[in-house]
């Protein structure tokens, strides 16, 4: 499994790679040495966007299905929280307890995502993109023009996370840890799924659906179930997103944001669950600071150019850059070892760079 090798080729031998521990310690200690702004708007926001993009990465990377409706599933969950919970707009806001609204919101997102899957499951490639984009745009216009339930253009404001254990969860540090835990759980779940029987069948279906069908696998069911699982992840991130912003309106789920999620997933890399996280960090940093680097009328050009360069030089996104660098070092080391007469070349090590 090439996923295992991303951290190290000795993953299976020695358990956890030291790099993982370093990253984990860094992420846990992060709020202690940064300002509230970096904890909340850079840290937590990156993690939320990354989790939504992770749900796309799971579909695209393991299932070969690029769905642009993942943000829509997240947005539906966010709207559900605002509608069933409390808001300050005076429309809906049924005031249900937070745990109930969260559970319902995530289930709605999962069911919605399955529904998107059911519609698009028999399409491939560009047609999947078109259908899911159409669903995303339709939902955007629907919420913008529906005033009875979704409060139209204005949307909802004043959506607060609950105060639990005496902690107000919107405060930067608690909220950061909340998003970190959710993101880590989602990533672990995607890891687990990718290696489960289901995940392996899904990857096989991605590579050759016809063969899997003739072997007796139910291809549409596998795909729809993948949509269902990704809907759970997207929905959970959607709840966090509405808590983060404190508000949700059609602008939160518009086409430009849909594309942002796709950019995050692609720029980060679609082959490994860590990809969306790299992409989200780069995206959020650029979004926040590009305006300081250059004339304010041109800063969107900087963002565009940065992403263009990444995709141009590495079709696999930032992950691909890392792979390439690591490979360079490894080849050098292997050459050295080879000179010493030791052959330690992993026969599969090149494979992951040739496969899309």
């Amino acid at each position: 499994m090439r996923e295992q090798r991303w951290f190290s080729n000795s993953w299976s031998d020695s358990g956890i790679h030291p790099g993982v521990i370093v990253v984990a310690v860094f992420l846990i200690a992060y709020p202690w040495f940064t300002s509230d702004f970096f904890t909340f708007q850079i840290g937590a926001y990156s993690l939320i966007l990354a989790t939504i993009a992770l749900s796309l990465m799971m579909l695209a990377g393991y299932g070969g299905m690029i769905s642009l409706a993942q943000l829509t599933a997240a947005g539906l969950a966010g709207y559900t929280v605002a509608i069933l919970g409390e808001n300050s707009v005076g429309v809906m806001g049924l005031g249900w307890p937070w745990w109930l609204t969260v559970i319902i919101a995530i289930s709605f997102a999962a069911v919605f995502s399955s529904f998107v899957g059911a519609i698009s499951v028999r399409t491939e490639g560009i047609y999947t993109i078109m259908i899911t984009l159409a669903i995303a745009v339709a939902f955007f216009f629907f919420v913008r023009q529906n005033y009875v339930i979704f409060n139209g253009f204005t949307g909802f404001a004043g959506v607060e996370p609950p105060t639990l254990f005496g902690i107000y969860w919107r405060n930067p540090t608690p909220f950061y840890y909340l998003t970190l835990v959710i993101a880590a759980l989602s990533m672990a779940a995607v890891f687990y799924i990718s290696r489960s029987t289901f995940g392996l069948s899904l990857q096989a279906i991605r590579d050759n659906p016809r063969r899997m069908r003739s072997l007796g696998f139910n291809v549409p069911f596998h795909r729809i179930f993948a949509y269902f699982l990704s809907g759970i992840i997207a929905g959970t991130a959607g709840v966090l997103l509405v808590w983060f912003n404190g508000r949700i309106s059609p602008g939160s789920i518009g086409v430009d944001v849909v594309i942002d999620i796709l950019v995050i997933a692609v720029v980060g890399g679609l082959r490994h669950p860590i990809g969306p996280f790299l992409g989200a960090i780069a995206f959020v940093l650029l979004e926040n600071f590009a305006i300081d680097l250059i004339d304010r009328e041109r800063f969107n050009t900087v963002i565009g150019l940065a992403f263009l360069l990444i995709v141009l030089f590495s079709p696999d996104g930032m992950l691909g850059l890392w792979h390439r660098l690591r490979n360079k070092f490894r080849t050098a080391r292997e050459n050295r070892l080879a000179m010493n007469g030791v052959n330690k070349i992993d026969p599969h090590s090149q494979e992951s760079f040739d496969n899309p």
Partner: protein
Amino acid sequence: MLKTLKKLFLVVALIAFSTGAMAQDTIKMGALATLEGAFAVLGEDSLRGVQMALAEFGNSAGGKNIELITGSSDASPDSAIRAARKLVEQDGIQVLVGPLSGSEGLAIKDYAKTQPNVTFLNGSSAAQDTTLRESAENFFRFSTEGAQWMAGLGEYAYNEKGYRTVAVLAEDYSFPYTQVFGFLEPFCRLGGKAPLDARFWVPIGNKDYSSVIAALPDDVDAIYVALGGADAINFLTQYEQAGGDAPLIAGSITVDQSVLGSKGPTRKFVVGTPSAGPISDTWDNPNWNAFVAAYQEQFPDGFPSPSLFAHAYYINTKAALLGLEAVGGDLSDGGAALRAALSALEFDTPTGMVKLDERRNAIADIFLTEVIEGPDGNLVNKTISVTKGVSQTFGLPYDEFLKYGQVSRENPSCE
């Protein structure tokens, strides 16, 4: 590539850590405008207004230099909050001017409540509730709002034009609601009618108005249109092509220079359209003429004449600078003295005197205009009259005004 990224991160880190070490003789001011999305052109013009005010003061106030930091949104409340949070919490600005559009203003007002030590001045956002209901102690609006901008128009349409029944066509969000309310309230009080089934609400950026045009009733005397920019041009063109001939009444950004400057048969069609707003391009007044001349000189590639966005940002920025002068640039008390000075501030703008009411919303003059064909064939807005000292509550006591209820698609009902 990785090197580039590394450099980028270094720069980012430098910016992050340099904020603490700023010299004490500098005041950081943030300007938040829509530099992305549908309103990007308007956002750029609004920043011209900020720059004009800064240039007028030589980039300093109260003996301290003003450092301007720009933030950008895409007109969605989410992005406005994110940009404001970055300016306040990361860049450490002490005074913020912005945002541009109505729903953003409502969001920034809510955010202002969480940052009591930062002073917020409105940009050009003109939704009523930004200051009318649950206002924030540290949010000031020296520009007026959408309902105030309509001052005098309802009376003019009823008394002078003789209209009795109007249809309404407007974009579907908080700012046009405010404008429709501001027009209909006096119009209906005089006895005018605007049936609910003759009110049409379209999304921003709507391209096709054929269904609206087909549904417009024949028995109305005029159509009140509150659309902005490209939306207005699209509607006017299609209405003219469909053979429509009902007279129009326009919202504050419906017959501005971007619409009047467009070519085609629409031009003749809009002659005689009354409108009202915080500025009038052709107002013959030395202060206004000087303002326009300064704008044209400073920004040769700007609009022919400053838009109401540049005007609103200019006034709010100038108010901030005057306030800073008054306190000698001393913000060591978390800006409390500055806010006290702003509350009491009264100053002369290119469009007359401005002061604040007790909810920190401007009381200012409003212009009633009508589209005419100028001597050189260009369409211009002729100033009909100036309504002095328009307040947010139309001169009513606050509690009484609140009885009108929140602006919405059905307020006032006018039946």
